[in-house]
């Protein structure tokens, strides 16, 4: 299990042992840091960035501070669990009568997973928006060029200027090829976005493992010429 960093904020003597036990059960290898207030977390992202913040009966300002914090990419900065009254849909709240280590451990794990999924989803939606914007612009340029070239070609053919006809035909070919390249790139990016484990492109003539010798492979010999 990967190492997490959990921050327990403003734990009272009664909640502290329960929260600590829950944290140990949910993430046995996690680094647990206790602070008195949200401001004590600070903004040193590299050194002290937690993945889960647990607050006990926070005031509205502290809860808002925890829930609304964003990372440098504009994504929710951490998962938030509130031990106490319900503070809205962006944080898991657990009423006092349900404070026991087993249940809280499940809530901690669920909050971290939900946060991770939400970040992945927002990141993906951002990627898709960027792709859509780029595709609109990048495709529009060659398509516009093809259309205008066709209009000019029509006029030039009417006039009978062979050199300009050849040039406009070349323009149509270049712009068509440009669109084909963009479609190829967009298709690759969209498949990679949809599937994080989308395989990298590799040189197919190189075998990475030789199953007969058990040693790393070497390039396949060139195929013999002839019909396939």
């Amino acid at each position, binding site marked *: 299990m990967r190492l997490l960093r959990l921050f327990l904020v403003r734990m009272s003597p009664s909640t502290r042992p329960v929260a600590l036990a829950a944290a140990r059960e949910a993430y046995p290898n996690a680094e647990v840091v206790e602070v008195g207030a949200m401001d004590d977390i600070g903004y040193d992202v590299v050194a002290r960035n937690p993945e889960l913040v647990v607050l006990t009966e926070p005031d509205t300002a502290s809860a808002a501070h925890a829930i609304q914090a964003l990372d440098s990419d504009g994504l929710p900065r951490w998962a938030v669990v509130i031990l106490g009254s319900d503070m809205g849909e962006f944080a898991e709240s657990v009423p006092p009568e349900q404070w026991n280590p087993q249940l809280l451990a499940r809530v901690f794990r669920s909050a971290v997973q939900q946060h991770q999924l939400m970040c992945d989803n927002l990141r993906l939606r951002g990627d898709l928006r960027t792709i859509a914007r780029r595709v*609109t*612009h990048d495709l*529009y*340029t*060659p*398509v*516009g*060029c*093809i*259309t*205008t*070239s066709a*209009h*000019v070609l029509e*006029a*030039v053919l009417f*006039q009978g200027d062979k050199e*300009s006809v050849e*040039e*406009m035909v070349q*323009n149509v070919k*270049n*712009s068509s090829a*440009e669109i084909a390249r963009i479609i190829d790139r967009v298709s690759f990016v969209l498949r990679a976005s949809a599937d994080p484990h989308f395989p990298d492109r590799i040189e197919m003539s190189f075998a990475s493992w030789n199953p007969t010798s058990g040693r790393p492979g070497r390039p396949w010999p060139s195929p013999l010429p002839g019909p396939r």
Partner: protein
Amino acid sequence: MNILIVDDHPNIARVTEVALGLLGCRTFTTGTTSEALRLLCTEKVEAIFLDLNLRGESGLEFLSKLTALDSGTPVVIFTAKNKCEYAEEAQRRGAFSYLAKPFDLDDLRRQLTQIEYFHGNREGALITQERWGSP
């Protein structure tokens, strides 16, 4: 009429050159604003066709610079049909008019006629109108 085309997409720039050539214009073409400024100093240019989406200095920034220079040369901006908000911004910054891509010879001829009128050349405007048919 002498026209300066500022567009860093070579195919678009070339097709614009050919189209303006068919309408009787002499063209100078560049993909950079620095080269455009140099050409404005060395050549007699009667209109500028400027793409808004240039790499480096944007078309809008360059347009503001041209307006500040107060050269009196009309600037027609190229813009994609779905980017009319940029056209409005360009006109606020002093653009003479805008040409939505993709354009055809009739669109270009209308622009040239307006430019001829702007320069007070009624005779030239009529010639441009007659070339490749009436509007």
